[in-house]
């Protein structure tokens, strides 16, 4: 496997919610053009850590983040960084599809509009079509772009949300259990999409499905009680993990 360049670098990251120490001294290098999966039991800190990567934790008052996280070498917690701009660069897709109560077209056009990515209607149309194609949903919605996004099926809504996330030309895509509300067919479509997105983005996915992590990712990180226990090549983690805690978790043992 060829080594890609490091996209995100985290060093000595600590997260506190009030007195609760949620993330303990995590160091990890996330590669560009790679899918990295975060796995671990509920409450292990994997979603918390994911949310550090686009400063979503800023919105929680009692949350405190220490350590250093850089994207392409730039410290994302630097005072000069505008979190809104950061989140355009680091897109996010959530567990439950959350389309805006607007038309399919406006769902996609919203981000590019507020970030001023299109000079005119023609350019915006182009961005909308390109994003919907990247979201692998263009063929299903191209004849009803004025219909409300909330009228789509769950799987379609989730792909719409992925299309919306890529519309602002992000460099990193964070996904927090993007398939847990979807049926197996919609899940397979999203997984196929994730694999395609890999050629342009660095994708980080949090999932409770070990099989999904094994299927979609090239690198896997196992979190346990706020620690990053093991990080490595996905094939290795699932056939011969180093740490007994990783092994107990992925084989479904009482560890």
């Amino acid at each position, binding site marked *: 496997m060829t080594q890609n360049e490091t996209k995100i670098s985290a060093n000595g990251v600590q997260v506190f919610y009030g007195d609760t120490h949620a993330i303990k001294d995590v160091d990890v290098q996330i590669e560009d053009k790679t899918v990295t999966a975060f796995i671990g039991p509920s409450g292990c800190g994997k979603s918390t850590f994911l949310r550090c990567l686009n400063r979503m934790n800023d919105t929680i008052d009692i949350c405190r983040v220490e350590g250093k996280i850089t994207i392409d070498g730039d410290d994302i917690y630097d005072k000069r960084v505008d979190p809104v701009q950061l989140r355009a660069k680091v897109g996010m897709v959530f567990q439950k599809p959350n389309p805006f109560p607007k038309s399919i077209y406006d769902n996609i056009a919203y981000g590019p509009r507020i970030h001023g990515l299109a000079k005119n209607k023609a350019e915006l149309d182009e961005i909308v079509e390109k994003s919907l194609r990247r979201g692998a949903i263009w063929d299903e919605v191209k004849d009803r772009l004025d219909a409300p996004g909330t009228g789509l099926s769950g799987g379609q809504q989730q792909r719409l949300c992925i299309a919306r996330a890529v519309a602002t030309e992000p460099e990193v895509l964070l996904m927090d259990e993007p398939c847990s509300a979807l049926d197996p067919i919609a899940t397979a479509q999203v997984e196929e999409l994730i694999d395609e997105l890999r050629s342009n983005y660095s994708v980080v996915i949090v999932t409770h499905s070990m099989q999904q992590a094994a299927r979609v990712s090239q690198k896997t990180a196992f979190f346990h009680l706020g620690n990053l226990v093991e990080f490595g090549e996905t094939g290795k983690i699932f056939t*011969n993990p180093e740490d007994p805690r990783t*092994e107990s978790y992925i084989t479904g*043992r009482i560890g």
Partner: protein
Amino acid sequence: MVNTDQHIVSAYDRDLESIQARIMKMGGMVEDAILKAAKSLETRDEELAEEVRLGDRAIDTLEEIINDEAARVIAIRAPTAIDLRVILSVMRMTSNLERIGDLSKNMAKRTGVLVQMQPIGSTASSLRRMAREVELMLKDALDAYIQRDEELARDVIERDRDVDQMYNTLFREFLTFMLEDPRNITACMHLHFIAKNIERMGDHVTSISEQVVFLVTGEKPNEARPKADRTSSDPHFSPETDGD
């Protein structure tokens, strides 16, 4: 260190235990076949040889059952890590055991022919000792498997060298007998095939031991297997050469 914690889904543990119990049973049947085939040759016991020939069917059936169960576990439980290695090693081991069973059956078939002929010196006893050694290696390999004992498995791999040397010695002996008297040729050819069968059994036991190392460590042993069988590679290997 192999993880011995129990699964949260206890039926998963039962599935894996059942498969491993069956492979131990299959191993026991194959050990029995080796010993009986060798004994029937030495004691010229046609009835015992017949028993070995007929017994091979039960070994083949058990192989099929184990492989079906392993396939079922893969389909239902999607095993990973140590569980995946258990299943992979089981599937390879059944095929090795099945081959050893076949080789024992072939020995027994030749015994049926050999009892019609004059014995060739004490070679039948030598073959019995060689088969006994292979059977002990198999027993240790199976013990190493069930106890997840990497050291013992590596020890078995080393011991295959002795079996190869026993084969070399017998090879020379058969050549001598054939040169002495051409009437010995038919019997010696059969006996040589038997020696080669036992030598091949040793290779299968080695392969089983390698599976044990894989099971415990997640990696195949990387050093080259000890090879002391020179009969196929050395053109000057003859009864007159003093070997090593």
